[in-house]
Each structure stands twice: as structure tokens, then as C-alpha cells.
């Protein structure tokens, strides 16, 4: 998505349950010769084996904001550290924030929208979640943090795939997709993903949500290609109904995708959206959208975490580009009918 140019420092948030392989990925990012320099905010010193004077220890201090919104929390330490790192702007290309395995990604993400100084200088590039293929299914049952981390992800590394069978792999992928059908999913061993699949994703991969119909999702990027390249002439496990992808419905976490090719009215949309997050914000973990407003030559991009919304004109619609509005939600017990009807009522 090179249309948006910005001198804001991109920030990648690295999450994942304990032992999933975050530190392995971090060490790869820091040691591979990619010509980029990263400032790294880690939750525990000493785990990184790299000598880098731009490694900073964080305290994971979650602060509530006094704005009448219970779910509006920020990471106080992150605000302080990013402010300090900006003293050395020019010495690094991007920032990586590692969170502990038990961390909720919401306060991290909200920090970039709520704090004006941080928001002016840095932008959230992507939330990358490393998941353990062998244990994720269990963690999704007993650890709400693990589920939040999957729900928040823009990119998911399903790691340690060498430790599970093909059946188990499809099972865990289906569990992930039941929570978050929009994230880019990579199967990995020892976190061995091309780094450009993790870094420099740009603004939450917003464009991607336009390209995906969750119902027809295949099992992940590389595997789509494999499927096509091999043609139809051979029989392996990827059979015809959705490439063997199992379908699950997670009991408490759902996603919802809305789309219209009719232009929206900004005078209807923004009040509706603000009311929606004010009422149902605690249940909405994330929302993302690309919107086409009536008489507006620009694409409008929107993203939100709980009650916090952040939006901007992104770029002009291109000639011939389908002027379509698309809005997705991931959350707990989402009031689906209410959201659908509300969205439809915003048509200009």
C-alpha cells in the first residue's frame, strides 16, 4: 500500500502466548541482514541475544484514561519510552514492541490513537501474533489473553507446525479463523517467515480486508499458491470444499463483515459509528474499514479499538477502482443485527 506516505515511525507490536516463539522471531529480526535498524521495546531484558543500544525494557503499565470510558486504557510506559526514543529519531527505521505472553493488545493499540504526541510521531504498523500450533487450541479454551491476541492480529504466525499432524494443523487454523478471518496467516517453524511478511505491513493491512471474503478463505498465503501451482490433477488433502478448511464458531468471539457499493453519508455514518462504539465498545475488540462517502473523491480509512476510533482520508479513489465500503468487526457477543441494520441506514 505505497500510496500513503508518512514520516511517522512504523511500530510493529509482537504478541503471543508464552513460549510461542516471539523471542525467536525478535532475534531473527534483529540479526538478519536487512539493512534496517530497529528500536526494540521488550518486556524482559536479557532474553535478546543481540547487542543493540536501542533495546529498552518496558514495565507494561496499563493506565485507565479519565474520559468516562472504562475500556479506554493506554500503556503509560510506552508513551514515555516512545517519547524518549524520538530523541534519537534518525537512528532507527522502525520500532518493535514485544509484549508479555499475558498481555492484552488493546492498551498497546489504543496508545497510538489516544496519546497525541505518540500518534503524531509513530503509527501502528501491524499487530503480529505468534501462536504455538501444538498448544494454541488448548490456550484458546483456558486463556482469554490468547484469544485476544488472535483477535487483534493483523498477521498470525502459526508456529511450530513441525510438531503437529496435518489434521491438527487444519484444526487449529479453523479455530483461529473462527475468531479472526481477516489476519494474514503464515505457517512457520522456528518463526521462519520472510521478514517483509511481518514488518512494514502499513496501517493494519487495511487494503487486505477489501480483498477477502472470509467464507472462501484458504488456509494461508503460501498454501494458496501451492494449490494453484499444482492444478487440479492430483489428490492431496486439500479437497474441494474450501480446501479442507474446517468451520468453527467460537462461542464468545465473532467477526462481522459489512459491505456496500452504495456511497455512505458521512452525516449518518459518523454519528452511528460513535454511538455504536459508545454503547458496544467494550464488546468490540477491533474494527477496520475502508469507506466511500458521497461526493468525496478520497478513500476514507477507519480503525478502532473498543471505544476509540481513528480515521483519515487515505488517498483519492483511482479511476476504475470499485468504490466500495467495507467494514469489519471482531468482538465478543457482537450485536450483529443491530450493526448490520445501522450500517445499511448510513447509505446516502
Amino acid at each position, binding site marked *: 500500500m505505497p500510496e500513503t506516505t508518512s514520516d511517522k515511525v512504523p511500530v510493529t507490536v509482537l504478541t503471543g502466548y508464552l513460549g510461542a516463539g516471539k523471542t525467536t522471531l525478535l532475534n531473527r529480526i534483529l540479526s538478519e541482514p536487512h539493512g534496517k535498524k530497529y528500536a526494540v521495546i521488550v518486556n524482559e531484558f536479557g532474553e535478546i541475544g543481540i547487542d543493540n*543500544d536501542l533495546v*529498552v*525494557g518496558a*514495565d507494561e*503499565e496499563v*493506565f*485507565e*484514561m*479519565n*474520559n468516562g470510558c472504562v475500556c479506554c486504557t*493506554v500503556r*503509560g*510506559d510506552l*508513551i*514515555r*519510552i516512545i517519547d*524518549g*526514543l524520538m*530523541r*534519537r*529519531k534518525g537512528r532507527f527505521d522502525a520500532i518493535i514492541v514485544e509484549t508479555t505472553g499475558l498481555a492484552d493488545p488493546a492498551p498497546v493499540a489504543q496508545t497510538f490513537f489516544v*496519546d*497525541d*504526541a505518540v500518534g503524531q510521531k509513530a503509527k501502528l504498523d501491524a499487530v503480529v501474533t505468534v501462536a504455538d500450533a501444538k498448544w494454541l487450541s488448548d490456550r484458546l479454551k483456558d486463556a482469554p489473553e490468547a484469544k485476544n491476541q488472535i483477535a487483534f492480529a493483523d498477521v498470525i504466525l502459526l508456529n511450530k507446525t513441525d510438531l503437529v499432524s496435518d489434521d491438527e494443523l487444519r484444526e487449529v487454523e479453523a479455530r483461529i479463523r473462527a475468531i479472526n478471518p481477516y489476519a494474514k496467516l503464515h505457517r512457520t517453524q522456528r518463526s521462519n517467515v520472510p521478514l517483509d511478511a511481518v514488518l512494514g505491513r502499513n496501517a493494519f493491512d487495511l487494503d487486505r480486508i477489501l480483498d477477502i471474503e472470509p467464507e472462501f478463505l484458504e488456509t494461508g498465503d503460501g498454501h494458496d499458491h501451492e494449490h494453484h501451482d499444482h492444478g487440479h490433477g492430483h489428490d492431496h488433502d486439500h479437497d474441494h470444499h474450501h480446501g479442507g478448511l474446517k468451520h468453527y464458531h467460537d462461542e464468545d468471539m465473532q467477526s462481522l463483515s459489512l459491505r456496500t457499493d452504495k456511497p455512505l453519508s458521512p452525516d449518518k455514518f459518523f454519528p452511528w459509528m460513535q454511538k455504536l462504539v459508545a454503547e458496544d465498545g467494550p464488546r468490540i475488540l477491533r474494527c477496520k474499514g475502508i469507506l466511500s462517502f458521497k461526493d468525496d473523491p478520497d478513500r476514507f480509512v477507519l480503525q478502532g479499538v473498543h471505544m476509540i476510533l481513528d480515521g483519515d482520508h487515505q488517498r483519492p479513489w483511482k479511476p476504475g477502482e470499485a468504490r466500495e465500503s467495507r467494514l469489519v468487526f471482531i468482538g465478543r457477543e457482537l450485536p450483529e443485527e443491530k450493526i448490520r441494520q445501522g450500517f445499511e441506514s448510513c447509505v446516502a
Partner: protein
Amino acid sequence: MPDTAADIPSVPSVVECTRPIAAGAPVVAVHMLGNEAVFVLGEEALLIAGKAEPRRVAVHGGGILCAASDGRRVVTGGDDGKVVAATATGETAVIAADAKRRWIDHVAVSGDGAVAWSAGRQAFVKPAKGEERTQEFPSSVGGLAFAPKGFRLAVAHYNGVSLWFANAAAKPEVLEWKGSHLAVTFSPDGRFIVTAMQEPTLHGWRLADGRNMRMSGYNAKVRSLSWSAGGKWLATSGSTQLILWPFQGKDGPMGKQPELLAPRDKRVVAVACHPAQDVVAVGYEDGLILLVRIGDGAEILARKPDGDAVAAIAWSASGALLAFGTEGGEAGILDLA
């Protein structure tokens, strides 16, 4: 948009009194030591400028995160874990080096030569003579300030401010208010404490009875606070005008409205009150600096806007010199005598 000096060429100007100084790196703070201006750069060094050629003085092996001054020296804290003091002649002394090389987030200097600093949740005080003391707080320290008289240190943190007597064994007294408290300052008469919060608001306490004061209405986090001569007003950044809270009466700003001066469509980012007169130097995000008289709002142009945000402003103790630095690495000293 209201008219201001930036828009009216006929407004009096003192721009020609400026001696420009190329700082060569972003300026993050400035302090006056006598007639020498000490520009604190974002990384590694101070730039000391008086009548002679500006001199770079190395103080840290990395980013400089905080600075404070008592008029005799400038004390800085860095991401190298060091607390360093520098004099106008460029002599430096390492006051402390953190054993774990943690970032020094905040420093404060008292009138009697004590230095305080913090790293994460831990605050330290080193008296002019005597042993270094330390105290752990419930969350990261957001700001430090010594009381105008005595040895009491205000430590801002999440959900309040702690008042710590470093030479007493007693637990610090806590002034509670929900939320994250950052910069903290005592009124010059020592009767009030004011914090700038994570939200765009100030919070204050009257120390005599702990009464709370909420000072809100800002559209950005308040990063610059300055007391006017005699402590009559508290000047602040954080809005598209200069905000002045009245502290003359015994109730301070309780139940009162602030004075709003020098309105523009650009945000005020740095303020510095003249040491003797009711005049405030007001720096904006587009680089404009105005001298604003508190009584009638009269404005004098001190720096033309050029899009380079003002980072810091300081007056000399005599009030004759005004130093400024910008985020883009420009600096200057105005001789108004």
C-alpha cells in the same frame, strides 16, 4: 482567525535583537546560567552559547531525556543511565550512573543544591552533602519537583502525587487523584501543587487542606508550565492560546476562569514567564514566538513562524536575555536590554 502579531506586520518586533545560533540538532530544553544559554540537544551534548562562540559539551552516550537547572548548573538525565551536571564554563560531573543502565526519565534540582532523578518506578535524591537516598513508587514516575523551600520532593505517578521527605524515614504522603500524572510543579509560595495529566488537563491540590482543583479545557497534553513573577499566574501550553490560571487568592484558581491570551489557529507548545515583569514568552508549533503582556494582552513579535516547532524558551535571571530552541535545530538568543 483572530489577529495576532504574526498576521499584522505593524506589531512591534524584537526579532532584530536575535543572535541566531545553529544548534545543528533538535533542541529539547534550554536553561540560562547567568548570561550563558545552555541548549540541551536531543542526543549526547549541550551547546553553551554566551558572548563567545557556542561550544558543544558532551554529557551523555545517547539520548538526553530530561534536564533541570538551579541557575548555577544544568543537570541532565540520559538513556545511558547517567545523571550529569554541567556548568556555564562547560565543566561536567557525573552525579550518578544507574547500575542497570536504566533510562533516567526525570531530573529535578533544588535551590540548596540537591538533585533528584528517577528511573522507572524508582526515585533518587542526592543532597548537596550527604548520602544518596531512594524510594520505590507504585508506578513509573511521571515527573519530579522540589518544594521551593526545604527538601520535600513531589513525585508524580499514576493516581496521584507523593510528597517524599528524603531525609525522613516516614512513608511519603500521597495526594490522590485518579489518572496518570506527569509534569509536576509547586507554586513559588509552596501552597499549591499542580500536575499535567495524561489527559489534556491539569490537576492541582492546595497543600493546606488537600483540596482538589481541576483545570481543564485543553485540546492537547500540557507539556510546558511556567509561574509568573511572584507566582500570580501559572502559564501553560496545550491550547491554541496562552492559558493563564490565577493563583493570587487563597483559593488559587478554584471557581475561577483562566485568562486566554494570544489566540491563534496554531497550538502553544512552550511558555516561559519573565522573571520580574508580567510578560510571557509564548512559543507555537509553527515556530512563532510572541512576548505577551498579561495585563492587556499586548503582543511583541520575537520570532517569525517558519513551520519549525518551538521546543523550549528560557529567560535569564535578569530578564534581559531570552533564549529559544526549535525541534528542527535552530536556536537563538535575544538581547532585550
